C-alpha cells in the first residue's frame, strides 16, 4: 500500500517536472515530437528505477555513520551519486545496444543526455533528504520517472499541435514552450491537495 502511495504521489502530486521543475533542459529540448519524447521518457523511467535503489544502498551502507565503514562520509554523496548515475547510464547503453538494437537506435542519442538530467540526481537527493526506506525509494524512482514521462509526452503533443497556430514570431518555439509548461504546472497544482491514501484505501 505504501509503495503505491509513494508511486502515485511521485507521479502526479509531486511531479518532478511540473512541481519541482527538474529535468527541464532535456524536457524542453527533446519535446518537439511525440515519438522522440516517448523514447526519452522511457529511458528516464528506466534509469531512475535502477539508480534509485543503488544510491539508496550506497547512502545507507557506505556513507552514513551507522553503515559498514562506521565513518560519516556524507560529503562524498554528490560524487558517488553522479558516478553511479553516469556508470549506470553507460551500462544501460551497452546492454541495450547488445540486446535490442532497434531500441538502441530509438534511444541512442538520449541515453548520454540522461546523465545530466537533473531529475535523476534530484530524485536521489530528494530520497536522501526525505529519508525514504528501500521500497519507498524504488516507488519514488518509478513514480517520478512515470510522472516525467507523462509530462514530456503531454508537452510534446501540445507543441505538435501549436505549430499550426498563429503565435507571435518572437514567442515561437522556446518562449511558447515555457509559457505552456507554466500553465501545465498550474493545472497540476490542483492535484496537490489530494491525499493519495484516499485512492489506495478506498480502492
Amino acid at each position, binding site marked *: 500500500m505504501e509503495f503505491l502511495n509513494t508511486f502515485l504521489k511521485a507521479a502526479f502530486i509531486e511531479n518532478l517536472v511540473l512541481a519541482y521543475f527538474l529535468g527541464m533542459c532535456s524536457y524542453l*529540448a527533446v519535446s518537439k515530437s511525440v515519438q522522440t519524447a516517448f523514447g526519452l521518457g522511457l529511458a528516464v523511467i528506466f534509469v531512475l528505477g535502477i539508480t534509485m535503489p543503488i544510491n539508496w544502498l550506497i547512502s545507507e551502507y557506505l556513507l552514513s555513520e551507522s553503515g559498514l565503514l562506521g565513518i560519516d562520509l556524507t560529503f562524498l554523496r554528490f560524487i558517488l551519486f553522479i558516478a553511479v548515475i553516469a556508470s549506470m547510464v553507460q551500462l544501460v547503453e551497452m546492454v541495450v545496444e547488445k540486446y535490442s538494437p532497434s531500441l538502441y537506435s530509438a534511444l541512442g542519442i538520449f541515453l548520454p543526455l540522461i546523465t545530466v538530467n*537533473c531529475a535523476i540526481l534530484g530524485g536521489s537527493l530528494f530520497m536522501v533528504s526525505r529519508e525514504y526506506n528501500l521500497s519507498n525509494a524504488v516507488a519514488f524512482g518509478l513514480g517520478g520517472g512515470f510522472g516525467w514521462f507523462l509530462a514530456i509526452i503531454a508537452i510534446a503533443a501540445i507543441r505538435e499541435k501549436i505549430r499550426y497556430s498563429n503565435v507571435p514570431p518572437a514567442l515561437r518555439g522556446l518562449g511558447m514552450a515555457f509559457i505552456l509548461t507554466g500553465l501545465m504546472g498550474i493545472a497540476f497544482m490542483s492535484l496537490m491537495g489530494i491525499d493519495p491514501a484516499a485512492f489506495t484505501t478506498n480502492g
Partner: protein
Amino acid sequence: MAETAVKEKESVFQFGKKERKLLTDPLNDNNPITVQVLGICSALAVTSLVYPSLVMAIAVIFVTAFSSLFTSLLRNYIPKSVRMIVQLVIIASLVTVVELTLKYLNYPVYKQLSVYIGLIITNCIVMGRLEAFSMANKPWRSFLDGVGNGLGYGVILVAVGVVRELFGKGSLFAGSPIELKIIGPTADYLVNTTDSMLFGWYANNNLMVLPASAMFIIGIMIWIQRSYNTKLVDVS
C-alpha cells in the same frame, strides 16, 4: 630572458576584444537560459526570493568558472572515452566545496536551497560549456567563458527573483541584512497599503510565489529579447 618570461605571462592573461566578447556574449546573444536553454532545471525553484537567487548565482559562477579552468588544464590528459565521468567528478568536487562553504556561512539559505545546490552538478550550463569550450581552449579563455556563462545565468536568475519577490511578497532581499520592505499592509513597509489613499487597492500577487510563475516570466523575457534581437527568432 626575464623579458620574454614577462611577455609570456602577459600573453597568458591578456584581456583584449576577444576576451571581452567571451564575457559579454552570454549576457545577451548567447544567453545560457534564454538562448541556449541550458540550466533551467535548478534555476526555477529557487527564484521566489532575490537573496537565495543571488547566492545560487554566485555559486554557479564559481562552479562554471573553476570547472572550466580545471577541465581546460587537464584537457590534454583526459582520454575521450571517460571524459564525461572526469568532468562530472571535477564538477561534483567543486559543488561539494560550495555546499560545505554555504552550510558554514549561511545555514538558513543553505536550508532554503536544499537539493538545488547539489543539482548544480547536473546544471547543463556547466557540462555544456565544458564540452563545447573548455575541452578545446586554453585555461585563461575557458575561465573567462565560464565566468561569462555563469554571469549570463545569474543575471536572468536575479531578474526573475526581483520580479517574483517584488510582486509576490512586496519586498526585496528578504532574509538578508539589507532587507527592503516596499509595499505591504503593515506600517513597516515603505508604502503602507492599509492607510494609503493611493495604494489601498494593492494586494500581493500570489501567483508569483508559485514556481509556475518563473516559467511565465522567463517566457515573457524570451519574448521581449527576441522582439529586439530578431536574429534569435525560431524559424522552424
